[in-house]
């Protein structure tokens, strides 16, 4: 049965990028940082680099500890912090995780803290993301 959804925002992501890459602004009481992150519907949580946490003025390791695991079995130690996360004009307060160690070159927008708060549609053929706040 067809179902119609409406979206407030249409964003064209770079066609040549690896993954569906979206600019993200993170805000903590001690800093602001703008980075890029991949929308990842397979990720349970949002993960950002250790440097992103440092730029926000966070004491990364004082956060909620969580071990994340990649499909290859590699474990990534991370720590959750409540921050403001804004993507394409949609502003949320969420717990996102920051890697314990530097070296991660990709950030990820996952379900808890991001996707669960949105209506989200991808038309990859057109390099388009359509997005709305869930309650809008």
């Amino acid at each position: 049965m067809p179902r119609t959804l409406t979206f407030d925002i249409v964003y064209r992501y770079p066609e040549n990028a690896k993954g569906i890459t979206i600019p993200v602004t993170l805000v903590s009481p001690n800093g602001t940082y703008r980075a890029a992150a991949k929308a990842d519907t397979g990720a349970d949580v949002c993960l950002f680099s250790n440097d992103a946490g440092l730029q926000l003025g966070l004491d990364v390791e004082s956060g909620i500890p969580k071990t994340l695991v990649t499909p290859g079995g590699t474990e990534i130690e991370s720590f959750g912090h409540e921050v403001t996360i804004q993507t394409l004009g949609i502003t949320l307060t969420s717990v996102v995780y920051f890697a314990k160690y530097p070296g991660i070159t990709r950030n990820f927008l996952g379900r808890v803290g991001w996707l669960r708060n949105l209506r989200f549609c991808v038309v990859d053929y057109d390099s388009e993301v359509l997005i709305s706040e869930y309650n809008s």
Partner: protein
Amino acid sequence: MKPTRIPEPDPAFNMRWIKEHGAEYAGRWVALDGDRLIAFGQTEGEVAIAARADGAYLPLVIYLPRQDEPDEIGF
């Protein structure tokens, strides 16, 4: 309480720069103020610090992968 929306720069300028110049900086981190390159380097930290020193409003700090980097599944 709903968080306050932050005025963000138009990402179209960042994306245009990446499309035009991204290959030249593949394998590096870059900081962009619109379509102006602020800094580039091997680590996110050094580039983020340079971007902060520049004073630009909400510069984008991003890693530009090389085309020969393996494709990814998850992280």
